[in-house]
């Protein structure tokens, strides 16, 4: 491809220029955005693309014979191809959703319809609420059982227990690739192959991994994969559900409506094939196109260099945080991404977060939508710094200074 020839080595200062919000100040101080786990910022290219779509290309998709409808459909489907290529899937295997939560709910409803009373769903103790609650609702509906693979004190999964939890009763193993709270990177490939050996299908929650590492669904061999656009430099309200084509074709649709049908009579309706079968109603067209553009942007970068930079940042952050007295990391897995949850002595995360904010630092405080995990660790919440490739070593230095100052004020 042409862009490969023109690719320049990753340069964080140049890349930062692509993200207008990173030039903002907060409370009169330069913004240090360390809340990428919650949502990432958008490059100008993505913002411009939304504008261009509405100014020049907007119409409904898959409908009209007129020029604009054809144009909108063309760019919409091109984005699907971009997403498919990005994760190693085919375009028919990519369903656009509102986000990760919507993607998981789609499978919980659709795949859930194939379950019988007594069947089991396996999740892990480090799941986000979005990968707990849909399964609880499903288990209630279909009288199935929800099993939870435990998490060890260091924030890794208790793999010694896997054979006890993953049995022939397990119909689906749904787990998080990278923990949004602990930063733990789970051994996805190994877990997927173990689940398959027991005849279970696997849903991989890639909401926190898609922006940090190369993801290839063929290599991972997951049956379903879910992620959100807004965590991968695209807008909110758009997400992706990948599903193996034959499996998805065999499942009942989730929602009924326009676009997902083949032929409707009052007596019976036949459904469209993948992927439109799972895209009822007018989709988030601009979101889809902007997601495609965000991935085009990533493809134009030296992504390997970007990931290496981010890995170095994560290590730098952890090593400097260790120098602060009374800091306790929540999650010390050997394999982590650049997300770090911590507590300082008995200081409340809210207090630290408020004082960091006063110094221009955006971090997340609280339970991070993983309340069962907080209960296990017996803590009210954590402070979480979650990085992206556009962060710098200098920002980490300033963050450490701001944190030390906050601790001093509160002690």
């Amino acid at each position, binding site marked *: 491809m042409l862009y490969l020839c023109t690719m320049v080595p990753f340069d964080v200062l140049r890349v930062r220029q692509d993200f207008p919000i990173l030039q903002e100040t907060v409370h009169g101080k330069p913004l240090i955005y360390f809340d990428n786990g919650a949502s990432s910022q958008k490059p100008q290219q993505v913002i411009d693309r939304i504008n261009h779509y509405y100014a020049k290309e907007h119409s409904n998709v898959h409908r009209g014979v007129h020029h604009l409808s054809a144009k909108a459909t063309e760019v919409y489907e091109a984005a699907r191809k971009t997403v498919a290529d990005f994760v190693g899937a085919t375009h028919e295997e990519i369903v656009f959703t509102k986000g990760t939560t919507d993607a998981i709910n789609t499978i919980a409803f659709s795949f859930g319809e194939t379950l019988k009373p007594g069947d089991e769903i396996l999740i892990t103790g480090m799941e986000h609420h979005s990968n707990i609650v849909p399964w609880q609702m499903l288990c209630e509906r279909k009288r199935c059982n929800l099993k939870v693979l435990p998490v060890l004190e260091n924030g890794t999964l208790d793999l010694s227990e896997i054979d006890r939890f993953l049995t022939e009763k397990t119909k689906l193993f749904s787990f998080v690739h990278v923990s949004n709270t602990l930063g733990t990177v789970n051994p996805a490939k190994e877990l997927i192959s173990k689940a398959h050996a027991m005849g279970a299908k696997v849903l991989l929650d890639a909401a926190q991994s898609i922006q940090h590492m190369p993801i290839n669904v063929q290599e991972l061999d997951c049956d379903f994969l879910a992620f959100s656009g807004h965590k991968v430099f695209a807008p909110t309200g758009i997400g992706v559900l990948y599903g193996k084509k034959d499996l998805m074709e065999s499942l009942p649709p989730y929602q009924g409506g326009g676009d997902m049908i083949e032929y409707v009579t009052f007596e019976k309706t036949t459904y469209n094939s993948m992927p439109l079968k799972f895209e009822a109603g007018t989709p988030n067209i601009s979101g889809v196109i902007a997601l495609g553009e965000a991935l085009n942007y990533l493809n134009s970068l030296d992504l390997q260099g970007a990931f290496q930079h981010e890995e170095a940042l994560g290590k730098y952050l952890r090593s400097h945080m260790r120098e602060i007295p009374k800091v306790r990391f929540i999650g010390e897995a050997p394999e982590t991404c650049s997300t770090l949850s911590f507590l300082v002595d008995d200081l409340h995360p*809210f207090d630290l977060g408020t004082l960091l904010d006063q110094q221009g630092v955006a971090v997340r405080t609280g339970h991070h939508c993983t309340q069962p995990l907080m209960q296990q660790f017996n803590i009210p919440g954590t402070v979480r710094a979650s990085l992206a490739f556009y962060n710098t070593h200098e920002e980490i230095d300033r963050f450490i200074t701001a944190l030390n100052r906050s601790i001093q004020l509160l002690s």
Partner: protein
Amino acid sequence: MSKSINELQDEVIEEFALFDDWMEKYEYIIDLGKDLPLIEEAKKTEDRLIHGCQSRVWVEAEVLDDRMCFTADSEAIITKGIISLLIRVLSNQTPENIVKSELYFIGEIGLQEHLSPTRANGLVGMINRLKSEALKQLAK
């Protein structure tokens, strides 16, 4: 004669006007938090808990000589400091005056960003609770 709600608000505004930067301001709020008249441990019950806060906040309201008297506690010291300011302005006032009070001091001292209904420290929740306790007294 005890001071009115607005006199107390003006007092707080005056105090905060002395601070040059955010650090001094928050240092003061943290000190207030440390001095907050604490609610008894036994009274930290579910019905005294204010929901929607990132740190748990409990409020207890009592009536002494037709005036409301508040005590509170929170796990977070800044939250304690902020509620301490609210209590200073609203405690020892009649339920009627509390219900109709307009708390302009929050904006004036630069804490308005804490006022967003979705803001995690739940300042709006705290104000609503203090006022609803006063309203309950009025309804009696």
